[in-house]
């Protein structure tokens, strides 16, 4: 989802229900803003080049130094 398809309160409601959150119209408006901000953050991360950096899932905090 990009900035060109904004998250409206109706979209937020669908997303919230998909997450099994209780329905609440006031919440939908607030969540729409939160969801949009979260997507922008994630989009910035996807723009990072991580091709040669593998996360060590079995030893997540082993130290190279």
């Amino acid at each position, binding site marked *: 989802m990009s900035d060109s398809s904004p998250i409206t309160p109706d979209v937020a409601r669908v*997303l919230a229900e998909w997450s099994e959150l209780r329905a609440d119209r006031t919440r939908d408006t607030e969540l729409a803003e*939160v969801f949009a901000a979260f997507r922008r953050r994630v989009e910035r991360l996807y723009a*990072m080049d*991580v091709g040669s950096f593998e996360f060590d*899932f079995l030893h997540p905090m082993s130290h190279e130094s």
Partner: protein
Amino acid sequence: MSPDDLRSLTITGAGRLLRARKLSSMELTRACLDRIQQLDGTLKAFITVTADLALAQARRADREIAKRAYRGPLHGIPVTLKDIYCTRGIRTTAGSRILGDFVPSADATATARLAEAGAVLVGKTNLHEFAAGVTSDNPHFGTCQNPWKLGYIPGGSSGGSAAAVAAGLGLASLGSDTGGSIRIPASFCGIVGHKPTYGLVPRTGILPESWSLDHGGPMTRTVADAAVVLQAIAGHDARDPSSARVRLPRLQRALRPDLEGVRVGVPSHYYFDVIDPEVERLVRAAIDELRKLGASVVEVKIPGVEAALDTCFVVAWAEAAHYHREWLLTRPQDYGADVGGLLKGALLYLATDYLQAQRVRARIRHSLSEVFRRVDVLVSPATPLPATPIGRLEVPLKSRTVSVLDVGARLTCVANLTGEPACSVPCGFTRAGLPVGLMVHGRAFADAKVLRVAYAYEQASGWTARLPGGL
């Protein structure tokens, strides 16, 4: 001892008096409890004051010291715990309504180690709800205040711990740090806060926010005191899967007043890009001081570090949303507005989002490990801004508006992603009288080197001697 005498007392200073029996733990503890009673109505640094327990522990400490059964530098010293450390038989709320009545059946490992060292617990401190924010403006237990300037935040999430240490309501506290929650309030309240290497201090019994980013550590008036507390709580714990099997050197022996032979790196980008001019001036002056102490100072580049805040944010909130999921679905009304809203938002992260964040994290860790081949420590501001007014989620900075949460954690979060040790030590005050912290960040398990640099600077600068006025 009068409650006012507590203001300038350190663990090392009080320890000498206690051991020589020139001061009793009962006197010290009573003075501390009196000061809490006098000030905490204003500061809101505590959620629970454990006066009866403290007096019983102090009595016992005095008996033992009289029999020459001295346990060490924490024996008889009044301390506090962020209310996220489990305490057997004493409620542990995490600053939340959800856990408002939670009474653990066992102590956290760090709690037990402090008790074993003879420390006296005077209370459990206020925090940002569930340790998930930087203001410590807690909707359930009150708005914690900055002792240097009422009406300003103490930082967070360990805001009550920092306010308590700064105001002399306990000689040390244990905080927790997921994106900066020890160092941000230490910086804002003019005290020392050390986030140890990941795995050095067991997390057993510290209520989690984010498993791969959470660290427990000391908050104290001085670097030497931080070394004393860290020495007491560090060490392997088989019940914590992330606990490291590493032997910590004698930290106090590592503290020297000079920096001969120490290579200091100053980041050439990101760390000084979004910053209050007064903070930059004080930090640059501190770096000059390190040079005078014998350190060699070089500029370093850290490729990818500009993604640190986004990476930390996604990892931390995704892990937190997993921990909170059941409560979010069944008790959403019991969360404060900011934490509840962000946790609900984090339920929407995809597994692929989390994995991308972890790969960016791997890139940042790689960059830092390369930097630490060239230098021993990195130094920077702990926070780009001093404490901000209570109730403000955004503040002006130069010609833009910045989020207090984002800018507060912008620099500290790097060491959470890498698991490396980082310490905030006071490096001066703004014209408005607000403290500023210098961050010293080192390679994994080089906590002694980080504390050495912080100590040498602290001794040369003397900022620790300054105390909040009017309290």
